[in-house]
């Protein structure tokens, strides 16, 4: 037994950054997503409902929640427009107001500590069945201080069944299990002999027993 101690060297953790985003269109080749500047994660639903009895709070139940968020970027993979309400109907000609389709994507966030900084570790985030909402794009005339157009998309997701857990559409693998992350990276980023692809839930669960 030992008394609790706070802020030991090497235990001052923080999270930072986002990089290595990949866009996985179902049935098509994945593409790196360059130019991502922010990914905001949030839960939709999950509101708490309180029930009262005799004027006293008797019970509080959290509603089911789904994963949603916002992606901000300077650029987008070329194929993404097909999932953002556009459809290329001939080479070079796209039309708007088409059906939005779900896709998968992944990204990496960094985990730092006081000893190693942001080199300490990272998390691989896998997002299933993301559906982009309609978003505004403002384009301004060029001036003496040109700025890139800031692209932004809100997305919602549809959860996947996960054995012995609630359905989820957001899976996170952390380098606290380096073997798991290394095996997962070979799948999601590809290797010199295998193309990148988005893993199924069952594949990820199988990796956890490595």
């Amino acid at each position, binding site marked *: 037994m030992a008394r609790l101690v706070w802020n030991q060297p090497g235990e001052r953790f923080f999270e930072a950054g986002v*990089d*290595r*985003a*990949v866009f996985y269109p179902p049935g098509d080749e*994945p593409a*790196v997503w*360059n*130019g991502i500047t922010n990914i905001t994660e949030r839960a939709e639903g999950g509101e708490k409902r309180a029930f009262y009895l005799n004027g006293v709070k008797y019970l509080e139940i959290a509603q*089911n929640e*789904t994963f949603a968020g916002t992606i901000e970027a*300077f*650029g987008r993979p070329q194929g993404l427009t097909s999932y953002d*309400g*556009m*459809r290329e*109907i*001939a*080479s*070079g*000609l*796209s*039309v*708007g*107001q*088409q*059906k*939005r*389709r*779900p896709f998968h994507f992944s990204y990496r966030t960094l985990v730092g500590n006081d000893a190693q900084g942001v080199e300490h570790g990272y998390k691989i985030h896998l997002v299933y*069945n993301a*559906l982009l*909402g*309609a*978003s*505004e*794009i*403002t*384009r*301004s*005339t*060029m001036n003496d201080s*040109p*700025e*890139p*157009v800031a*692209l932004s998309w809100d997305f*919602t*997701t*549809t*959860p996947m069944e996960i054995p012995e857990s*609630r*359905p989820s559409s957001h899976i996170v693998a952390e380098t606290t299990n380096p073997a798991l992350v290394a095996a997962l990276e070979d799948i999601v*980023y*590809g*290797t*010199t*002999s*295998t*193309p*990148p692809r988005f893993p199924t839930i069952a594949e990820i669960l199988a990796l956890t027993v490595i």
Partner: protein
Amino acid sequence: MSRLVWSERNFESGVSQGVLYFPDRSALAWNGLTAIAETPDGDRIRPLYLDGDKRVAISQPEEFSIKVEAFTYPEILDNRYISTSGMAYTTHLNDRRRIHLVYNPRFTPDERSYSSISDDAESVTFAWLGTTTRVALPGYAPTAHLVIDTPKVKSAFVQDVETILYGSSTRDPEWFPPNVWVSAFTEMIDNDTLLIVDHGDGQWTAIGPDSMIEMLDDDTFQITSPTAVYLDADTYTVSSM
């Protein structure tokens, strides 16, 4: 096979070459255009639940509107009841140009604020909200927004497109419905073919390479195509190929 690499650094910027097209087939350049915000109307994703969990998300049809800001504008827009056939503008992705075609925008002016001139004079910025009406497009959802990605198209065809949209010394600018552009792109990109557009009012337009359509003078043209067939000395038929 190769591992994914994050190297390209693309970004979009700029807007230019705004043009308004009217039902009487006239067109006006929109000078002083400073910004266009593309606004798909409504976040219409409808989730369906089963056993308390979200199972399906269905995207609903969405409308398209634009918000236009400018230092100045064609005076005809002061008529609030004016209807337009369309608006074209160009945006840039690195050194690539994209030509946007917006169908049936109806412009409503936004608030205007005029201030006394000070030692730091600023131009008044005008703004309009342009709501659109989608146009049927066989095989696809109705649309009010077409985008032409010029690097994916032969440069000669891009010149044809720009000649149609912006006009030239020998022809006026023209505005075509989406199905005409779809025909033009699917038929002309791989082959140098001829496209005939019947406007339904006794007038028609021929689009094709210079090798097929030659202006002999300001009013006289010559079409060389296997589909141009003389019926007699003064009458001929010509169709798309």
